[in-house]
């Protein structure tokens, strides 16, 4: 038991080292780990690889985003529960990054908001700047900014996903 915790930590740290040590900054509507929306995907992914300490585990093209051809770069290990990777980056047909999809608590905004933060913390951090969009009984998101903005998806009063996007 004494060796179990360091072993688990080491396993995680080796698989995704940068994320294990320091929270990575999110600039809402702009960037993640200083890689900005609009940046060419080759440069952006190289930068992210350096900062996160690991290459994308899955890349490809032609996903199902809005019916357009896009390129995707998924970092980390797939979470079977929510069927997503810790960080998913998408670039458009011109290879410019237009979405960072964050599904892990390791990335935080300057206000300390991250996946797993409560809805109350989110509202406290951004207040009236947020626009609430509710669809049905489950789908709830708060949007910050306009076309170039950030979406915070909330389920059971917790943030489950942060989307930094330009579309």
């Amino acid at each position: 038991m004494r060796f179990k915790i360091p072993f688990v930590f080491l396993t995680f740290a080796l698989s995704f080292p940068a994320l294990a040590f320091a929270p990575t900054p999110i600039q809402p509507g702009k960037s993640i780990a200083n890689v900005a929306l609009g940046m060419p995907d080759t440069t952006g992914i190289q930068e992210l690889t350096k900062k996160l300490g690991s290459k994308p585990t899955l890349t490809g093209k032609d996903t199902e985003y809005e019916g357009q051809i896009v390129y995707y770069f998924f970092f980390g290990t797939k979470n079977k529960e929510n069927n997503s990777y810790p960080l998913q980056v998408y670039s458009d047909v011109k290879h410019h990054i237009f979405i960072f999809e964050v599904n892990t608590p390791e990335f935080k905004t300057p206000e300390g908001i991250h996946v797993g933060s409560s809805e109350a913390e989110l509202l406290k951090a951004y207040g009236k700047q947020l626009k609430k969009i509710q669809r049905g009984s489950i789908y709830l998101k708060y949007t910050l900014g306009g076309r170039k903005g950030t979406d915070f998806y909330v389920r059971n009063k917790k943030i489950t996903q942060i989307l930094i996007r330009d579309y």
Partner: protein
Amino acid sequence: MKRLGLALFCWSFLNLSALALPLKPDYEIQAFSTPLQKQETQISLSEQPPNVWLSVALANHQVISNLKGVWISVLGEKTSSENFELSLMLNQKTVLQKKIKAGEAFFLPAIALETGSNELILKLQNKETLINQQKLTLYHLSERPAATFVLVDKYNFALYYVQNDILEKTYPIATGRPRTPTPTGLFIMGKKEIMPYPNTGWGVRRLLIYTKSAYPSRHWSGYALHGTNNPNSIGTEASHGCVRMFNQDVTELSELIPIETPVVIREKLPFYFEKT
């Protein structure tokens, strides 16, 4: 179930109080899907009932109902000979004014609704004194394939089960992704299946839907209402076009709905009803 529906319907109307002015609690406007007492007089049903169906959002309670089944009565001391004036305003236009006594009931006449949202105000006055006022929001939808049907609202990730014009159930769902959208239109639920391996994407049950033209030949559309092995996807655009439901919900629905129940799938409805 009919009794339950009627009870729900009456109960919903009884709970109109959120918008009512509490001026004289002895008298209130009520509406029933059938007359409560046989001796009540049917005053006006001169024309054919409207060939529409609508949903009625009543404070926090809801029903979906065919307007033709609605009776209105004024409850109160039946011995009183006081005359009240009942007026109905639809979208700020007076469509009905009627003298009525306590204990009397009448059948709501046909009222032409506009497509979409309609505001109906029922007002009860005694000379100049306002006794009670109720405000209802009515939604006129163009499609009502039968008295019992399934209605899917893609935008709100909601599936409604309407039985005999009364909303019985609301379930949250997942719909198709943008590249593989859930088709809209009228379908027929033609086959129920219990899935042998519930850990697959189909979940525990599958209700196959057919287009109307293909149903006689049982040529399946490829789409279904089914369960899931990924409950986190409910409330999102996640499927390949099918309507995904929680396993317990699809099990319940499959036991509720008969074969050949129409399934109407719409992009967006002008209302959303919380889960019942």
